[in-house]
Protein backbone atom coordinates (compact mmCIF):
# COMPACT_ATOMS: atom_id res chain seq x y z
CA UNK A 1 0.00 0.00 0.00
CA UNK A 2 2.82 2.38 0.81
CA UNK A 3 3.92 2.46 -2.80
CA UNK A 4 0.64 3.95 -3.96
CA UNK A 5 0.56 6.65 -1.29
CA UNK A 6 3.02 8.59 -3.40
CA UNK A 7 0.35 8.98 -6.04
CA UNK A 8 -1.82 10.95 -3.63
CA UNK A 9 0.82 13.40 -2.60
CA UNK A 10 0.17 16.99 -3.59
CA UNK A 11 3.78 17.15 -4.63
CA UNK A 12 3.28 14.57 -7.32
CA UNK A 13 2.07 16.85 -10.07
CA UNK A 14 4.65 19.56 -9.51
CA UNK A 15 7.38 16.92 -9.54
CA UNK A 16 6.11 15.40 -12.74
CA UNK A 17 5.91 18.84 -14.22
CA UNK A 18 9.45 19.64 -13.15
CA UNK A 19 10.68 16.37 -14.55
CA UNK A 20 8.96 16.94 -17.86
CA UNK A 21 10.18 20.43 -18.14
CA UNK A 22 13.75 19.73 -17.10
CA UNK A 23 14.26 16.93 -19.54
CA UNK A 24 12.07 18.21 -22.33
CA UNK A 25 14.87 19.07 -24.77
CA UNK A 26 16.23 15.56 -24.53
CA UNK A 27 13.02 13.97 -25.64
CA UNK A 28 11.49 16.49 -27.95
CA UNK A 29 12.66 18.33 -31.02
CA UNK A 30 13.62 21.96 -31.19
CA UNK A 31 10.17 22.84 -32.44
CA UNK A 32 8.53 21.71 -29.23
CA UNK A 33 11.23 23.28 -27.13
CA UNK A 34 10.45 26.54 -28.88
CA UNK A 35 6.79 26.09 -28.12
CA UNK A 36 7.44 25.58 -24.44
CA UNK A 37 9.66 28.65 -24.36
CA UNK A 38 6.75 30.58 -25.84
CA UNK A 39 4.40 29.18 -23.25
CA UNK A 40 6.72 30.22 -20.41
CA UNK A 41 7.15 33.75 -21.73
CA UNK A 42 3.48 34.25 -22.46
CA UNK A 43 2.64 32.80 -19.06
CA UNK A 44 4.74 35.51 -17.44
CA UNK A 45 2.86 38.07 -19.49
CA UNK A 46 -0.51 36.62 -18.55
CA UNK A 47 0.50 36.39 -14.90
CA UNK A 48 1.51 40.04 -14.95
CA UNK A 49 -1.86 41.00 -16.39
CA UNK A 50 -3.59 38.89 -13.79
CA UNK A 51 -2.09 41.01 -11.02
CA UNK A 52 -4.30 43.77 -12.36
CA UNK A 53 -7.30 41.88 -13.63
CA UNK A 54 -7.55 38.92 -11.31
CA UNK A 55 -6.20 40.31 -8.09
CA UNK A 56 -6.97 44.01 -8.14
CA UNK A 57 -10.04 43.96 -10.36
CA UNK A 58 -8.65 46.44 -12.90
CA UNK A 59 -9.46 45.38 -16.48
CA UNK A 60 -6.50 46.66 -18.42
CA UNK A 61 -6.97 46.42 -22.17
CA UNK A 62 -3.59 47.77 -23.07
CA UNK A 63 -1.16 45.58 -21.21
CA UNK A 64 0.91 45.04 -24.34
CA UNK A 65 2.20 48.57 -23.75
CA UNK A 66 4.82 47.49 -21.22
CA UNK A 67 5.70 44.35 -23.13
CA UNK A 68 6.31 46.48 -26.20
CA UNK A 69 8.33 49.18 -24.49
CA UNK A 70 10.66 46.65 -22.88
CA UNK A 71 10.93 44.73 -26.14
CA UNK A 72 11.83 47.76 -28.23
CA UNK A 73 14.24 49.02 -25.60
CA UNK A 74 16.00 45.69 -25.62
CA UNK A 75 16.10 45.49 -29.38
CA UNK A 76 17.31 49.04 -29.85
CA UNK A 77 20.00 48.74 -27.21
CA UNK A 78 21.24 45.51 -28.69
CA UNK A 79 21.35 46.92 -32.19
CA UNK A 80 23.08 50.02 -30.86
CA UNK A 81 25.86 47.72 -29.80
CA UNK A 82 25.47 47.58 -26.05
CA UNK A 83 27.32 44.45 -25.14
CA UNK A 84 26.27 43.70 -21.60
CA UNK A 85 23.34 41.31 -21.61
CA UNK A 86 22.23 42.02 -18.07
CA UNK A 87 22.45 45.76 -18.52
CA UNK A 88 20.22 45.59 -21.56
CA UNK A 89 17.76 43.39 -19.76
CA UNK A 90 17.59 45.62 -16.70
CA UNK A 91 17.20 48.77 -18.78
CA UNK A 92 14.51 47.12 -20.90
CA UNK A 93 12.53 46.01 -17.90
CA UNK A 94 13.17 49.31 -16.18
CA UNK A 95 11.78 51.28 -19.10
CA UNK A 96 8.72 49.04 -19.16
CA UNK A 97 8.25 49.74 -15.49
CA UNK A 98 8.85 53.46 -15.98
CA UNK A 99 6.15 53.54 -18.62
CA UNK A 100 3.80 51.94 -16.14
CA UNK A 101 4.79 54.55 -13.56
CA UNK A 102 3.83 57.30 -15.99
CA UNK A 103 0.77 55.72 -17.58
CA UNK A 104 -0.50 54.42 -14.27
CA UNK A 105 -0.80 57.96 -13.09
CA UNK A 106 -3.00 58.72 -16.09
CA UNK A 107 -5.09 55.59 -15.97
CA UNK A 108 -5.66 54.73 -12.33
CA UNK A 109 -7.89 57.65 -11.59
CA UNK A 110 -10.56 56.19 -13.84
CA UNK A 111 -12.77 53.24 -13.10
CA UNK A 112 -14.50 50.57 -15.06
CA UNK A 113 -15.18 51.43 -18.67
CA UNK A 114 -13.11 54.61 -18.55
CA UNK A 115 -10.12 52.70 -17.26
CA UNK A 116 -10.48 50.23 -20.11
CA UNK A 117 -10.75 53.03 -22.62
CA UNK A 118 -7.67 54.81 -21.36
CA UNK A 119 -5.46 51.75 -21.11
CA UNK A 120 -6.49 50.76 -24.61
CA UNK A 121 -5.84 54.22 -25.99
CA UNK A 122 -2.39 54.40 -24.40
CA UNK A 123 -1.31 51.11 -25.94
CA UNK A 124 -2.73 52.11 -29.31
CA UNK A 125 -0.88 55.41 -29.28
CA UNK A 126 2.39 53.63 -28.65
CA UNK A 127 1.54 51.20 -31.42
CA UNK A 128 0.99 54.12 -33.72
CA UNK A 129 4.25 55.75 -32.68
CA UNK A 130 6.18 52.54 -33.25
CA UNK A 131 4.54 52.32 -36.66
CA UNK A 132 5.25 55.82 -37.82
CA UNK A 133 8.60 56.64 -36.33
CA UNK A 134 10.36 54.82 -39.08
CA UNK A 135 13.72 56.39 -38.60
CA UNK A 136 13.86 55.07 -35.09
CA UNK A 137 11.80 51.91 -35.06
CA UNK A 138 11.81 51.07 -38.77
CA UNK A 139 8.03 51.10 -38.54
CA UNK A 140 6.15 48.12 -39.79
CA UNK A 141 9.29 46.36 -40.93
CA UNK A 142 10.46 46.09 -37.38
CA UNK A 143 13.93 45.53 -36.08
CA UNK A 144 15.34 42.16 -36.94
CA UNK A 145 18.58 40.50 -36.10
CA UNK A 146 18.49 40.69 -32.34
CA UNK A 147 20.72 37.98 -31.13
CA UNK A 148 21.48 36.37 -27.85
CA UNK A 149 24.81 36.54 -26.19
CA UNK A 150 27.01 35.54 -23.33
CA UNK A 151 25.55 36.16 -19.95
CA UNK A 152 28.67 35.65 -17.92
CA UNK A 153 30.19 32.51 -16.42
CA UNK A 154 30.90 31.45 -19.96
CA UNK A 155 27.30 30.66 -20.70
CA UNK A 156 26.16 31.57 -24.17
CA UNK A 157 22.45 31.96 -24.77
CA UNK A 158 22.60 31.60 -28.49
CA UNK A 159 21.93 27.89 -28.62
CA UNK A 160 18.22 27.28 -28.18
CA UNK A 161 18.93 24.69 -25.54
CA UNK A 162 20.70 27.19 -23.33
CA UNK A 163 18.00 29.77 -23.84
CA UNK A 164 15.41 27.21 -22.93
CA UNK A 165 16.97 26.57 -19.54
CA UNK A 166 17.54 30.24 -19.00
CA UNK A 167 13.89 30.94 -19.62
CA UNK A 168 12.86 28.02 -17.46
CA UNK A 169 14.93 29.21 -14.53
CA UNK A 170 13.63 32.74 -14.90
CA UNK A 171 10.09 31.45 -15.13
CA UNK A 172 10.48 29.45 -11.93
CA UNK A 173 12.02 32.40 -10.13
CA UNK A 174 9.16 34.61 -11.24
CA UNK A 175 6.62 32.03 -10.12
CA UNK A 176 8.16 32.00 -6.66
CA UNK A 177 8.37 35.79 -6.59
CA UNK A 178 4.75 36.12 -7.63
CA UNK A 179 3.70 33.51 -5.11
CA UNK A 180 5.24 35.54 -2.32
CA UNK A 181 3.95 38.80 -3.78
CA UNK A 182 0.39 37.57 -4.11
CA UNK A 183 0.43 36.04 -0.63
CA UNK A 184 1.95 39.07 1.01
CA UNK A 185 -0.11 41.60 2.96
CA UNK A 186 0.06 43.78 -0.14
CA UNK A 187 -1.33 41.00 -2.30
CA UNK A 188 -4.17 40.39 0.12
CA UNK A 189 -4.91 44.09 0.13
CA UNK A 190 -5.19 44.03 -3.66
CA UNK A 191 -7.84 41.37 -3.45
CA UNK A 192 -9.60 43.41 -0.83
CA UNK A 193 -9.62 46.32 -3.24
CA UNK A 194 -11.03 44.02 -5.87
CA UNK A 195 -13.85 42.88 -3.62
CA UNK A 196 -14.80 46.20 -2.10
CA UNK A 197 -12.96 49.46 -2.52
CA UNK A 198 -15.27 51.26 -0.14
CA UNK A 199 -14.67 48.78 2.64
CA UNK A 200 -10.92 49.04 2.15
CA UNK A 201 -11.11 52.81 2.32
CA UNK A 202 -13.24 52.62 5.44
CA UNK A 203 -10.60 50.38 6.99
CA UNK A 204 -8.00 53.01 6.29
CA UNK A 205 -6.21 51.71 3.22
CA UNK A 206 -5.09 54.33 0.70
CA UNK A 207 -6.72 52.45 -2.14
CA UNK A 208 -5.38 54.63 -4.94
CA UNK A 209 -1.83 53.86 -3.90
CA UNK A 210 -2.45 50.12 -3.95
CA UNK A 211 -4.00 50.23 -7.40
CA UNK A 212 -1.17 52.35 -8.71
CA UNK A 213 1.52 50.09 -7.31
CA UNK A 214 -0.27 47.04 -8.67
CA UNK A 215 -0.23 48.74 -12.06
CA UNK A 216 3.51 49.38 -11.80
CA UNK A 217 4.34 45.85 -10.68
CA UNK A 218 2.22 44.45 -13.48
CA UNK A 219 4.10 46.63 -15.92
CA UNK A 220 7.47 45.47 -14.64
CA UNK A 221 6.59 41.81 -15.00
CA UNK A 222 5.13 42.46 -18.43
CA UNK A 223 8.42 44.07 -19.29
CA UNK A 224 10.28 40.92 -18.30
CA UNK A 225 8.19 38.90 -20.71
CA UNK A 226 8.77 41.50 -23.42
CA UNK A 227 12.51 41.28 -23.07
CA UNK A 228 12.45 37.50 -23.10
CA UNK A 229 10.26 37.42 -26.19
CA UNK A 230 12.62 39.65 -28.13
CA UNK A 231 15.49 37.36 -27.34
CA UNK A 232 13.42 34.37 -28.29
CA UNK A 233 12.09 35.67 -31.59
CA UNK A 234 15.06 37.77 -32.60
CA UNK A 235 13.05 40.76 -33.74
CA UNK A 236 10.57 43.38 -32.61
CA UNK A 237 7.81 45.20 -34.48
CA UNK A 238 4.77 47.36 -33.71
CA UNK A 239 2.55 44.33 -33.16
CA UNK A 240 4.28 44.01 -29.79
CA UNK A 241 2.10 46.94 -28.74
CA UNK A 242 -0.91 45.51 -30.48
CA UNK A 243 -4.46 45.11 -29.44
CA UNK A 244 -4.27 41.43 -30.39
CA UNK A 245 -1.55 40.80 -27.86
CA UNK A 246 -3.50 42.49 -25.09
CA UNK A 247 -6.61 40.63 -26.18
CA UNK A 248 -4.79 37.28 -26.28
CA UNK A 249 -3.56 37.76 -22.75
CA UNK A 250 -7.09 38.43 -21.55
CA UNK A 251 -8.30 35.33 -23.33
CA UNK A 252 -5.59 33.33 -21.58
CA UNK A 253 -6.96 34.49 -18.25
CA UNK A 254 -10.48 33.63 -19.26
CA UNK A 255 -9.60 30.17 -20.53
CA UNK A 256 -7.05 29.22 -17.93
CA UNK A 257 -8.55 30.90 -14.95
CA UNK A 258 -7.82 34.12 -13.19
CA UNK A 259 -6.79 34.91 -9.65
CA UNK A 260 -4.38 32.02 -9.20
CA UNK A 261 -0.85 31.22 -10.26
CA UNK A 262 -1.77 28.18 -12.25
CA UNK A 263 -4.60 29.67 -14.30
CA UNK A 264 -2.58 32.09 -16.44
CA UNK A 265 0.03 29.42 -17.08
CA UNK A 266 -2.61 27.01 -18.30
CA UNK A 267 -4.23 29.72 -20.35
CA UNK A 268 -0.91 30.54 -21.94
CA UNK A 269 -0.40 26.90 -22.76
CA UNK A 270 -3.78 26.63 -24.38
CA UNK A 271 -3.46 29.71 -26.55
CA UNK A 272 0.14 29.14 -27.60
CA UNK A 273 -0.54 25.53 -28.54
CA UNK A 274 -3.76 26.41 -30.35
CA UNK A 275 -2.10 29.19 -32.25
CA UNK A 276 0.76 27.01 -33.38
CA UNK A 277 -1.40 24.06 -34.29
CA UNK A 278 -4.01 26.08 -36.15
CA UNK A 279 -1.46 28.20 -37.96
CA UNK A 280 -0.02 24.96 -39.21
CA UNK A 281 -2.92 24.22 -41.46
CA UNK A 282 -4.65 27.49 -42.18
CA UNK A 283 -3.88 31.13 -42.64
CA UNK A 284 -7.05 32.10 -40.93
CA UNK A 285 -5.79 31.85 -37.35
CA UNK A 286 -6.99 35.38 -36.66
CA UNK A 287 -10.49 34.52 -37.73
CA UNK A 288 -10.51 31.40 -35.60
CA UNK A 289 -9.14 33.32 -32.63
CA UNK A 290 -11.94 35.81 -33.03
CA UNK A 291 -14.53 33.06 -33.16
CA UNK A 292 -13.04 31.41 -30.09
CA UNK A 293 -13.25 34.74 -28.35
CA UNK A 294 -16.90 35.22 -29.15
CA UNK A 295 -17.83 31.64 -28.38
CA UNK A 296 -15.98 31.61 -25.06
CA UNK A 297 -17.55 34.84 -23.88
CA UNK A 298 -21.00 33.76 -24.95
CA UNK A 299 -20.63 30.42 -23.18
CA UNK A 300 -18.98 31.54 -19.98
CA UNK A 301 -21.30 34.51 -19.69
CA UNK A 302 -21.25 34.67 -15.92
CA UNK A 303 -18.29 34.61 -13.71
CA UNK A 304 -15.65 36.00 -15.95
CA UNK A 305 -14.09 38.66 -13.87
CA UNK A 306 -17.46 39.31 -12.32
CA UNK A 307 -15.75 41.44 -9.75
CA UNK A 308 -14.53 43.98 -12.24
CA UNK A 309 -15.45 47.30 -10.80
CA UNK A 310 -17.96 49.55 -12.39
CA UNK A 311 -17.72 53.29 -12.23
Amino acid at each position, binding site marked *: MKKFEILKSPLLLPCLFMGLVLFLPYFFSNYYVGLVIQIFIMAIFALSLDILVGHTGLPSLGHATYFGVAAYATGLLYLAGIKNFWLVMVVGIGLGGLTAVLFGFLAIRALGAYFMLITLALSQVLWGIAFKWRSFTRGDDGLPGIGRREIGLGIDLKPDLHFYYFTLILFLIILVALF*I*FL*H*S*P*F*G*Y*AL*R*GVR*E*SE*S*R*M*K*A*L*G*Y*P*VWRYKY*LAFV*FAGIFAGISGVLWVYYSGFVNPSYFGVDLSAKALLMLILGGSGSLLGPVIGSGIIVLLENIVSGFTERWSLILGVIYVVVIMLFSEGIFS*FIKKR
Partner: protein
Amino acid sequence: MKALEIEGLSKNFGGLWAIRNVSLDIEEGERRAIIGPNGAGKTTLFHLINGFLSPSSGRLFLFGDEVTHLEVHQRAARGISRTFQVTNLFQKLTLFENLLLGVQAIRRARSCFYRRIKSFKEMIHEAENLLKEWNLWEKKDVPLKNLSYGEQRQIEVMMALATQPRLLLLDEPTAGLSPAETLFMTSIIKSLPREITIILIEHDMDVAFEIAEKITVLHFGSILTEGPLEQIKGNPKVSEIYLG
Protein backbone atom coordinates in the same frame (compact mmCIF):
# COMPACT_ATOMS: atom_id res chain seq x y z
CA MET B 1 -12.64 66.12 24.48
CA LYS B 2 -15.35 65.79 21.93
CA ALA B 3 -15.12 62.69 19.78
CA LEU B 4 -17.02 64.34 16.96
CA GLU B 5 -18.04 67.92 16.28
CA ILE B 6 -20.20 68.85 13.33
CA GLU B 7 -20.71 72.52 12.49
CA GLY B 8 -23.38 73.65 10.07
CA LEU B 9 -23.12 70.61 7.85
CA SER B 10 -25.15 70.61 4.65
CA LYS B 11 -25.26 68.40 1.62
CA ASN B 12 -27.03 69.26 -1.54
CA PHE B 13 -27.66 66.84 -4.40
CA GLY B 14 -28.59 68.73 -7.53
CA GLY B 15 -31.04 70.99 -5.77
CA LEU B 16 -32.17 68.57 -3.10
CA TRP B 17 -30.97 69.17 0.44
CA ALA B 18 -30.23 65.76 1.90
CA ILE B 19 -28.66 67.28 4.99
CA ARG B 20 -29.47 70.81 5.98
CA ASN B 21 -27.45 72.78 8.49
CA VAL B 22 -26.78 69.99 10.96
CA SER B 23 -24.65 70.73 13.99
CA LEU B 24 -23.97 68.28 16.74
CA ASP B 25 -21.35 67.27 19.29
CA ILE B 26 -20.58 63.85 20.62
CA GLU B 27 -18.54 63.36 23.77
CA GLU B 28 -15.89 60.72 24.07
CA GLY B 29 -17.29 57.45 25.33
CA GLU B 30 -20.84 58.49 24.57
CA ARG B 31 -23.47 56.20 23.13
CA ARG B 32 -25.53 58.23 20.66
CA ALA B 33 -28.37 57.01 18.50
CA ILE B 34 -29.50 58.80 15.40
CA ILE B 35 -33.06 58.01 14.52
CA GLY B 36 -35.58 59.29 12.03
CA PRO B 37 -37.90 58.03 9.33
CA ASN B 38 -36.65 56.68 6.02
CA GLY B 39 -35.09 59.36 3.92
CA ALA B 40 -34.29 61.56 6.89
CA GLY B 41 -30.66 61.51 5.86
CA LYS B 42 -29.15 59.25 8.49
CA THR B 43 -26.92 57.23 6.22
CA THR B 44 -26.04 60.35 4.25
CA LEU B 45 -24.88 61.84 7.51
CA PHE B 46 -22.69 58.84 8.14
CA HIS B 47 -21.22 59.14 4.64
CA LEU B 48 -20.41 62.76 5.40
CA ILE B 49 -18.82 61.95 8.75
CA ASN B 50 -16.83 59.10 7.31
CA GLY B 51 -15.77 60.85 4.13
CA PHE B 52 -17.61 59.04 1.37
CA LEU B 53 -19.40 62.29 0.62
CA SER B 54 -17.99 65.79 0.87
CA PRO B 55 -20.17 68.45 2.38
CA SER B 56 -21.64 71.31 0.39
CA SER B 57 -20.90 73.42 3.43
CA GLY B 58 -19.98 72.99 7.05
CA ARG B 59 -17.10 71.56 9.01
CA LEU B 60 -16.25 68.33 10.76
CA PHE B 61 -13.88 67.74 13.66
CA LEU B 62 -12.66 64.37 14.84
CA PHE B 63 -11.11 64.35 18.33
CA GLY B 64 -10.35 68.01 17.99
CA ASP B 65 -8.78 67.90 14.51
CA GLU B 66 -10.57 69.24 11.47
CA VAL B 67 -11.24 66.51 8.95
CA THR B 68 -13.64 68.30 6.60
CA HIS B 69 -11.41 67.88 3.56
CA LEU B 70 -9.79 64.59 4.39
CA GLU B 71 -10.42 61.44 2.42
CA VAL B 72 -12.07 58.33 3.79
CA HIS B 73 -8.88 56.45 4.51
CA GLN B 74 -7.29 59.47 6.13
CA ARG B 75 -10.22 59.81 8.52
CA ALA B 76 -10.07 56.08 9.21
CA ALA B 77 -6.44 56.51 10.20
CA ARG B 78 -7.58 58.96 12.85
CA GLY B 79 -9.69 56.36 14.55
CA ILE B 80 -13.06 56.32 12.88
CA SER B 81 -14.61 53.05 11.77
CA ARG B 82 -18.00 52.07 10.47
CA THR B 83 -20.35 49.35 9.48
CA PHE B 84 -22.54 49.59 6.41
CA GLN B 85 -26.27 49.31 6.11
CA VAL B 86 -25.87 46.88 3.25
CA THR B 87 -23.27 44.32 4.26
CA ASN B 88 -20.00 45.38 2.72
CA LEU B 89 -17.48 42.64 3.16
CA PHE B 90 -15.08 40.76 0.91
CA GLN B 91 -17.48 38.16 -0.38
CA LYS B 92 -15.11 35.94 -2.30
CA LEU B 93 -12.46 35.87 0.41
CA THR B 94 -12.63 33.56 3.39
CA LEU B 95 -13.71 34.75 6.81
CA PHE B 96 -10.14 34.57 8.00
CA GLU B 97 -8.89 36.59 5.05
CA ASN B 98 -11.56 39.19 5.69
CA LEU B 99 -10.44 39.60 9.28
CA LEU B 100 -6.78 39.64 8.31
CA LEU B 101 -7.44 42.62 6.09
CA GLY B 102 -9.11 44.34 9.01
CA VAL B 103 -6.34 43.51 11.43
CA GLN B 104 -3.56 44.47 9.04
CA ALA B 105 -5.18 47.78 8.14
CA ILE B 106 -3.62 49.68 11.01
CA ARG B 107 -0.19 48.14 10.72
CA ARG B 108 2.78 49.10 8.61
CA ALA B 109 2.96 45.51 7.48
CA ARG B 110 -0.01 46.20 5.24
CA SER B 111 2.26 47.46 2.48
CA CYS B 112 4.75 44.64 2.63
CA PHE B 113 4.98 42.83 -0.69
CA TYR B 114 8.04 40.65 -0.24
CA ARG B 115 7.04 38.43 2.68
CA ARG B 116 4.18 36.02 2.93
CA ILE B 117 1.41 37.15 5.21
CA LYS B 118 1.77 33.93 7.20
CA SER B 119 5.13 35.13 8.45
CA PHE B 120 3.51 37.97 10.36
CA LYS B 121 2.73 35.86 13.40
CA GLU B 122 1.35 38.63 15.54
CA MET B 123 -1.22 39.66 12.98
CA ILE B 124 -2.25 36.10 12.34
CA HIS B 125 -2.72 35.46 16.05
CA GLU B 126 -4.76 38.58 16.48
CA ALA B 127 -7.12 37.56 13.69
CA GLU B 128 -7.33 34.05 15.13
CA ASN B 129 -8.15 35.45 18.56
CA LEU B 130 -10.91 37.58 17.13
CA LEU B 131 -12.41 34.52 15.54
CA LYS B 132 -12.28 32.56 18.77
CA GLU B 133 -13.69 35.45 20.80
CA TRP B 134 -16.66 35.69 18.52
CA ASN B 135 -17.17 31.94 18.27
CA LEU B 136 -16.52 31.74 14.57
CA TRP B 137 -13.34 29.68 14.61
CA GLU B 138 -14.85 26.70 12.74
CA LYS B 139 -15.92 28.92 9.90
CA LYS B 140 -12.54 30.54 9.35
CA ASP B 141 -11.92 29.07 5.92
CA VAL B 142 -15.45 29.49 4.64
CA PRO B 143 -15.82 32.00 1.80
CA LEU B 144 -17.74 34.90 3.20
CA LYS B 145 -20.57 34.61 0.70
CA ASN B 146 -21.41 31.21 2.14
CA LEU B 147 -22.06 32.55 5.60
CA SER B 148 -25.54 33.39 6.76
CA TYR B 149 -26.91 36.91 6.70
CA GLY B 150 -26.91 37.07 10.49
CA GLU B 151 -23.29 35.94 10.67
CA GLN B 152 -22.31 38.49 8.05
CA ARG B 153 -23.95 41.32 10.00
CA GLN B 154 -21.94 40.20 12.98
CA ILE B 155 -18.76 40.14 10.96
CA GLU B 156 -19.50 43.67 9.77
CA VAL B 157 -19.15 44.76 13.35
CA MET B 158 -16.09 42.59 13.89
CA MET B 159 -14.36 44.18 10.90
CA ALA B 160 -15.12 47.65 12.16
CA LEU B 161 -13.65 46.73 15.54
CA ALA B 162 -10.56 45.07 14.07
CA THR B 163 -9.00 48.46 13.41
CA GLN B 164 -9.27 49.40 17.09
CA PRO B 165 -11.33 52.51 16.45
CA ARG B 166 -11.96 55.34 18.85
CA LEU B 167 -15.21 56.27 17.13
CA LEU B 168 -17.51 53.60 15.78
CA LEU B 169 -20.36 54.33 13.41
CA LEU B 170 -22.92 51.53 13.29
CA ASP B 171 -25.37 51.78 10.40
CA GLU B 172 -28.44 49.73 11.25
CA PRO B 173 -26.50 46.80 12.68
CA THR B 174 -29.63 44.80 13.41
CA ALA B 175 -31.25 45.28 10.00
CA GLY B 176 -32.79 42.01 8.87
CA LEU B 177 -31.78 40.07 11.96
CA SER B 178 -34.01 37.64 13.81
CA PRO B 179 -35.13 38.58 17.33
CA ALA B 180 -32.54 36.26 18.86
CA GLU B 181 -29.80 37.65 16.64
CA THR B 182 -30.94 41.17 17.44
CA LEU B 183 -30.65 40.48 21.17
CA PHE B 184 -27.18 39.08 20.66
CA MET B 185 -26.05 42.04 18.59
CA THR B 186 -27.48 44.48 21.11
CA SER B 187 -25.62 42.81 23.95
CA ILE B 188 -22.39 42.87 21.96
CA ILE B 189 -22.72 46.58 21.33
CA LYS B 190 -23.57 47.28 24.94
CA SER B 191 -20.53 45.40 26.11
CA LEU B 192 -18.10 47.45 24.03
CA PRO B 193 -15.58 49.36 26.15
CA ARG B 194 -15.92 53.07 26.87
CA GLU B 195 -12.74 53.79 24.94
CA ILE B 196 -14.89 53.45 21.87
CA THR B 197 -17.41 56.20 21.25
CA ILE B 198 -20.47 54.81 19.49
CA ILE B 199 -22.89 56.47 17.10
CA LEU B 200 -25.73 54.21 16.10
CA ILE B 201 -28.28 54.53 13.33
CA GLU B 202 -31.21 52.34 14.09
CA HIS B 203 -34.64 51.74 12.75
CA ASP B 204 -35.53 49.40 15.55
CA MET B 205 -36.57 51.71 18.39
CA ASP B 206 -36.14 49.06 21.04
CA VAL B 207 -32.52 48.56 20.10
CA ALA B 208 -31.88 52.29 19.92
CA PHE B 209 -33.43 52.91 23.33
CA GLU B 210 -31.56 49.93 24.78
CA ILE B 211 -28.15 51.20 23.77
CA ALA B 212 -28.32 54.97 23.57
CA GLU B 213 -27.71 57.49 26.28
CA LYS B 214 -28.51 60.43 24.06
CA ILE B 215 -30.61 60.54 20.91
CA THR B 216 -30.60 62.81 17.91
CA VAL B 217 -33.72 62.81 15.76
CA LEU B 218 -33.32 63.62 12.09
CA HIS B 219 -36.17 64.64 9.85
CA PHE B 220 -35.85 65.78 6.23
CA GLY B 221 -32.15 66.29 6.70
CA SER B 222 -32.31 68.53 9.75
CA ILE B 223 -32.25 67.87 13.45
CA LEU B 224 -35.77 67.82 14.76
CA THR B 225 -34.78 67.43 18.36
CA GLU B 226 -32.01 66.06 20.48
CA GLY B 227 -31.64 65.04 24.07
CA PRO B 228 -31.15 62.36 26.70
CA LEU B 229 -32.90 59.04 26.23
CA GLU B 230 -35.84 59.58 28.57
CA GLN B 231 -36.59 62.97 27.09
CA ILE B 232 -36.80 61.66 23.54
CA LYS B 233 -38.67 58.54 24.52
CA GLY B 234 -41.58 60.51 25.80
CA ASN B 235 -41.54 63.18 23.14
CA PRO B 236 -44.78 63.08 21.11
CA LYS B 237 -43.23 64.93 18.17
CA VAL B 238 -40.90 62.02 17.63
CA SER B 239 -43.60 59.38 17.26
CA GLU B 240 -45.49 61.81 15.07
CA ILE B 241 -42.84 61.92 12.41
CA TYR B 242 -42.83 58.16 12.18
CA LEU B 243 -46.55 57.83 11.87
CA GLY B 244 -47.37 61.04 10.05
